[in-house]
């Protein structure tokens, strides 16, 4: 039987990987050992980084792309997709990660931005990108630059879900309002959101973003994960919430189960039992740097 053209790095192929991660949990890991624990627990992907956001917050200084050797060590230790972070606008870090064969690049506000005006032109890459967003305009600007997945930013490293909820509600609320708008009003929406009109029109027609939307930044418990899912997130990223808790492996398993059975309160109750202490967490008025404000 005949076969024709192949098309690596196409929008469909890259948005498709995001589609495959739906309903799953992507876990931050800093060592191959943690990556194994995450895979053992049922993570659908891992995010390889040098320090989890809670430690970046504590240590201060400039946070950059992780050490290449460390990323390769994690790639070698698991068979699930491996993601890694680059600084906002740092296209050379992205070139390096692509050459390593990382499966997804997170252009992340958790790292110190490299460019205060421009995000990476993600159409120049074969590898797919995920970007954070606090509102619909930001999400659509990232998609217009080629992002294949959006994650609501939340506030990384806090173990506090409140910002993730704010961002999810903002994005999804505006999507809902746009679907009610008439064609003339969409021009005004595009102007207000500072987003390309064709993408605004696409959102109005689909009633959703043209790419999957996941939730990140502050998830620390199975209930947090299920809440994000019930609000409309299609999967969750858990950063510090697992490996900054007392007993990471059972908590990781519980968050995986909660993300699948997110509407089933009896299962949520069952998996929430006996997990030990979650990460301590920080209230928003106790932090001096909001990562979510990074990105333009």
């Amino acid at each position, binding site marked *: 039987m005949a076969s024709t053209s192949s098309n690596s790095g196409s929008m469909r*192929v890259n948005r498709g*990987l995001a589609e495959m991660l739906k*309903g799953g949990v992507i876990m931050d890991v800093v060592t191959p050992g943690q990556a194994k624990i995450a895979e053992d627990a049922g993570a659908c992907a891992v995010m390889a980084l040098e320090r989890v956001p809670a430690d970046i917050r504590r240590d201060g200084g400039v946070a950059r792309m992780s050490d290449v050797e460390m990323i390769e060590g994690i790639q070698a230790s698991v*068979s699930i997709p491996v993601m890694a972070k680059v600084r906002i606008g740092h296209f050379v870090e992205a070139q390096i990660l692509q050459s390593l064969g990382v499966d997804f690049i997170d252009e992340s506000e958790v790292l110190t931005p490299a460019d205060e005006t421009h995000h990476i032109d993600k159409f120049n890459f074969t*590898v797919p990108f995920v970007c954070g967003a606090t509102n619909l305009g930001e999400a659509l600007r990232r998609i217009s630059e080629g992002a294949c997945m959006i994650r609501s930013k939340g506030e990384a490293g806090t173990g506090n879900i409140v910002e993730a909820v704010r961002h999810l509600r903002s994005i999804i609320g505006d999507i809902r309002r746009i679907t009610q708008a008439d064609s003339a009003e969409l021009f005004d929406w595009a102007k207000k959101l500072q987003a390309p009109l064709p993408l605004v029109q696409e959102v109005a027609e689909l009633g959703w973003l043209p790419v999957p939307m996941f939730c990140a930044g502050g998830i620390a418990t199975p209930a947090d994960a299920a809440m994000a899912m019930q609000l409309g997130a299609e999967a969750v990223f858990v950063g510090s919430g697992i490996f900054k808790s007392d007993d990471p492996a059972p908590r990781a398993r519980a968050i995986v189960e909660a993300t*699948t059975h997110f509407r089933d309160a009896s299962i949520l109750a069952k998996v929430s039992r006996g997990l030990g202490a979650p990460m301590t967490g920080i209230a928003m008025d106790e932090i001096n740097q909001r990562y979510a404000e990074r990105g333009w």
Partner: protein
Amino acid sequence: MPVVGVLALQGAFHAHARALKQLNVEVREVRLPHDLEGLDGIVLPGGESTTMSHLLISSGIFEVLAQRIADGLPTMGTCAGLILLAERVLDARPDQVSCSVLDVTVRRNGYGRQIDSFEADIAVKGLETPFTAVFIRAPIIEDVGSDVEILAVHNGVPIAVASQNVLAATFHPELTSDVRFHELFLNMISSGSTAHSGR
């Protein structure tokens, strides 16, 4: 109207549901054993097979699902879903479970990482014109048993197969707007569990 389940533990279950709804079937998300009651067919979607394997066990659904499929429930598996049906799985974790109803040997991530993912127009037995197949960190079928019919190949490798009540592909028919592959599955359901289009 047939009732088709989509295993909704993790992965591309929404995309399969969307395709099936276009073909006027009632779609049910399947997460727990009681969701299997009264189904006319089930789809095991793509996603991460290690994750789904884990959740099949923790949800208590694995054994009853495997039994229903072994008893003849029409089943379509795509990508990770194919892995969950295969009798022999390579490069998997030792604790990964499979329903073991499809006589093939499959290697996880056989094409490599995401940068090696691709799409290609392929000829599928039973479809008149080529079908755009999207491969995402796809598995490779390395060997098929004598009772397994090969429906499509790409670069000499089988990418779609059928056997009794099972239809499976290493690509993702749910990621395009073309629902003809899902139609093949519905034909299999409507013609009785052991026959399928093209045989």
